[in-house]
C-alpha cells in the first residue's frame, strides 16, 4: 500500500508533489471516471444478452439467470429465490407461470409441485459473459475478409494522406511563394462544406472515375482531407528555420530537408494525424456505405452496421462488433501516442 502510495504521490522526477500535481491527479481521476467508465461499461455490455441489454434498470456487470436441468424435464429450468410465503429462502426451479402464480419445484425434490405468487420470487442471477455475442459473429460472416479490407483501406489511405498532406504542409509553411495564401484558404475552405452534403457529388465523381465498388474508391477520396494539411502546417511553423538553413548548408536537397528534417521534427503532429487518419478510415461508415455495395469489398464498419435493420437493431451483436473493431485502433493508439511526446526539448542551439 505504501508503495502504491509512493508511486502515485510522486512525479517522475521524484520530488515531492506540488499542489498542481494534486490538482492534476484529481482531474485525471475525475477524467477516468467520466471518460472511461462509459467505455468500460460498453465493453461489459457487449457481454450481455440481448434481453439483459433491454432490462431496467441497467446493471453494470452482465448477469444471466441461473438454470438447472432436472430429470424428467427436457429444457433447463430457471431458478428463483423465494422471498416470502412458506417457502421463503428456498431456491426453486420454475416449471411455468400462469397469470399471477408460478408452478415451481424444489430441485432436491422434483416430484412435488409448488404454487408460488409471482411477486414472492426473484430470479437467481449470476455474473455470466455472453461470449456467444462474439462467437456468433465469426460464424455469421467473413470476419477475416472484412478485417483485411478495413486494414488495407486504413493503412493505404493513411500513408497516402500522411505523405501528401505533409508535403503540402511543408510547402505552405516553409516556402514563400505566390499563391500560398490562396492555396491555404482553399484548403481551409473545403473544410467548411459538411461531408454529408458532398457525399452525392463525390459519389458521382468516384463513379465517373470507375472507382465504384472498389477499395480505391474509399482510399483515394479519403486521403484528400484538408484537416491534415492545416494541422501539419501549423505545427511546422514552429520548427526553427535555422535548422533548415543548416541542412541547406549541408547540401541537402529540398526533398531531403523534407524527408530527413521536417518529417522527423514534426513527429508529434504526424503521430496525431496518423492516429486521427487511422481512426477516420477505420471507423468510416457513410462513405464506404455508398461506394461499396458488394459484400466481398465490405469493411468491418459496414458489417457491423448490417445489424441495423429497419425495425430492429441487434444491439448485442452490434456492441460485440464495436468492441472488436475498437481493439485494433486502441492498440494503434497506445503505440503511436508515445511519439506525441517527442517534441523539441531544446532546439539544439541557442
Amino acid at each position, binding site marked *: 500500500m505504501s508503495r502504491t502510495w509512493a508511486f502515485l504521490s510522486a512525479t517522475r522526477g521524484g520530488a515531492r508533489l506540488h499542489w498542481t500535481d494534486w490538482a492534476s491527479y484529481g482531474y485525471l481521476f475525475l477524467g477516468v471516471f467520466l471518460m472511461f467508465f462509459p467505455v468500460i461499461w460498453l465493453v461489459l455490455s457487449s457481454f450481455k444478452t440481448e434481453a439483459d441489454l433491454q432490462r431496467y434498470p441497467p446493471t453494470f456487470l452482465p448477469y444471466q439467470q441461473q438454470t438447472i436441468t432436472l430429470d424428467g424435464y427436457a429444457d433447463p429450468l430457471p431458478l428463483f429465490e423465494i422471498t416470502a410465503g412458506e417457502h421463503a429462502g428456498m431456491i426453486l426451479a420454475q416449471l411455468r407461470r400462469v397469470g399471477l402464480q408460478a408452478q415451481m419445484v424444489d430441485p432436491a425434490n422434483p416430484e412435488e409441485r409448488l404454487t408460488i405468487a409471482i411477486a414472492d420470487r426473484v430470479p437467481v442471477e449470476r455474473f455470466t459473459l455472453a461470449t456467444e455475442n462474439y462467437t456468433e459473429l465469426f460464424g455469421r460472416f467473413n470476419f477475416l475478409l472484412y478485417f483485411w479490407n478495413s486494414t488495407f483501406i486504413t493503412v493505404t489511405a493513411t500513408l497516402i494522406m500522411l505523405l501528401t498532406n505533409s508535403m503540402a504542409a511543408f510547402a505552405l509553411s516553409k516556402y514563400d511563394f505566390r499563391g500560398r495564401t490562396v492555396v491555404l484558404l482553399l484548403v481551409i475552405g473545403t473544410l467548411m462544406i459538411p461531408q454529408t452534403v458532398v457525399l452525392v457529388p463525390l459519389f458521382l465523381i468516384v463513379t465517373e472515375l470507375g472507382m465504384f465498388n472498389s477499395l480505391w474508391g474509399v482510399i483515394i477520396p479519403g486521403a484528400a482531407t484538408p484537416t491534415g494539411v492545416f494541422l501539419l502546417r501549423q505545427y511546422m511553423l514552429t520548427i526553427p528555420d535555422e535548422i533548415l538553413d543548416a541542412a541547406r548548408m549541408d547540401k541537402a536537397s529540398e526533398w531531403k530537408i523534407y524527408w530527413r528534417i521536417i518529417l522527423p521534427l514534426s*513527429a508529434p503532429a504526424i503521430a496525431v494525424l496518423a492516429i486521427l487518419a487511422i481512426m477516420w478510415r477505420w471507423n468510416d461508415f457513410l462513405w464506404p456505405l455508398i461506394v461499396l455495395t458488394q459484400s466481398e469489398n465490405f469493411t468491418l464498419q459496414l458489417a457491423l452496421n448490417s445489424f441495423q435493420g429497419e425495425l430492429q437493431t441487434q444491439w448485442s451483436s452490434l456492441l460485440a462488433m464495436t468492441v472488436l473493431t475498437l481493439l485494433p485502433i486502441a492498440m494503434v493508439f497506445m503505440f503511436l501516442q508515445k511519439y506525441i511526446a517527442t517534441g523539441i526539448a531544446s532546439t539544439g542551439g541557442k
Partner: protein
Amino acid sequence: MASIELRQVRKAYGAAEVIKGIDLSIAHGEFCVFVGPSGCGKSTLLRMISGLEDISGGEIAIGGEVVNRIPAADRGLAMVFQSYALYPHMTVRQNLSFGLENINTPRPEITRKVAEVSKMLQIDQLLDRRPKDLSGGQRQRVAIGRAVVREPRVFLFDEPLSNLDAELRVDMRGEIAALHRRLGNTMIYVTHDQVEAMTMADKIAVLRLGKLEQFGAPLDLYNRPANLFVAGFIGSPKMNFLTGQVDAGDRSLLHLDTGETLRLPAAGFAQRAGEKVTLGIRPNHMQASAEGPVAVQVRSVEQLGGESYVYGHTATGAPITVHSPGQTRIAIGDTVRVGAPEDETHLFDSASGLSLREG
C-alpha cells in the same frame, strides 16, 4: 578556385540597413577573419555569402562566378552557425554524417571521416548522444564538426570557439589552422577573440555598423590602424586615447587637454601645427615612471598573476589602462605618472578619426 568577391553588397531589413555597401575580395586559400562590435553585421554578411540570406543589393562572386541567384546548397560552402543549429532529432554521429550522405559519400568513408573529425574535436565519446544531452561547448564542437567533415571549398565560421575553455580553444585553433593548411581552402571566420583574430588570420576585416573600416594583415592593422575605431578595436585591452592640440609652432609638441604636454614622434605622422589630434598609446606600451608626462588617478587594479592591469583616468577623465608584466604594486587610489616611448604612439585626426600616419 574559391576566391570570394563582394561588390557593394547591401542588406536591409525593411527600412533598417544593416550592411551598407561592402567591397571585399578574399583570395583563394586565404584565411579571412571578420571582427567588429556586436551587432555590426558579421553574421549577416556570412549568411549572405552562404546564400541563406537574400542580398538587397550588390554582387557576391565565388570563384569568379556571381552567385546571387545560386541557392545555398549549391554554393559549395560549409558553415558553423553562431547558434549551432544542430539537428535536434539526430545523434551526434548523424549530425556529422548528414552532409556527407547528401553528397553520396560511400558508407565506409563516412564512418572513417566522422571518426576522424570527432576525435579531432574530442567528441568521440559522445557520438550516440542527442544535442540536448550535450554541454554547451560540446554542442559547439559538434557544430564545428558538421562543417569540417565535409571539406568544402569554402568554410564559414561564426564564432565557433566562443563556448570552449581556454585549453580546448587553443587546441581547436590549432586544428582549424592545420585543416586550413591541409585543405588549402578559403575560410571566413567571425570572432570576438583578439588572439584568434591575430593568430589565425591572413587578413582581418574590421566591420562597424555595416561598413568595412579596414581590411588587411593582422600586424598591419595592429601596427598601422587606419582610424581611431580600428586602433581602439584591435588590441586588448583597448588602446588609450589622449586628445590635444598640436603646438602652434612646434609640430612635435602636443598640448593635451589635461594641460600636460607630450612629445610627438618626430616622423611618420602628418600632423599640422595647431591641429586637434588624438594620441593613441597601447596599454602595454604605457610605462609608469616618475617622469611620465601624464598623471593618472588609479581606479582599479587587476592582478592576473603573470601580468596586471591598472585602470585609471587622466585629469580630464579620459580612461587609461596600463598593462604590465608580472604583479604590480600600484594600488587603487594611487596617482601614477605614465608615459610611452615616442615611436610606439599613434596619431589620429580628432575630427575625422583617420590616422595621420604617412605612407
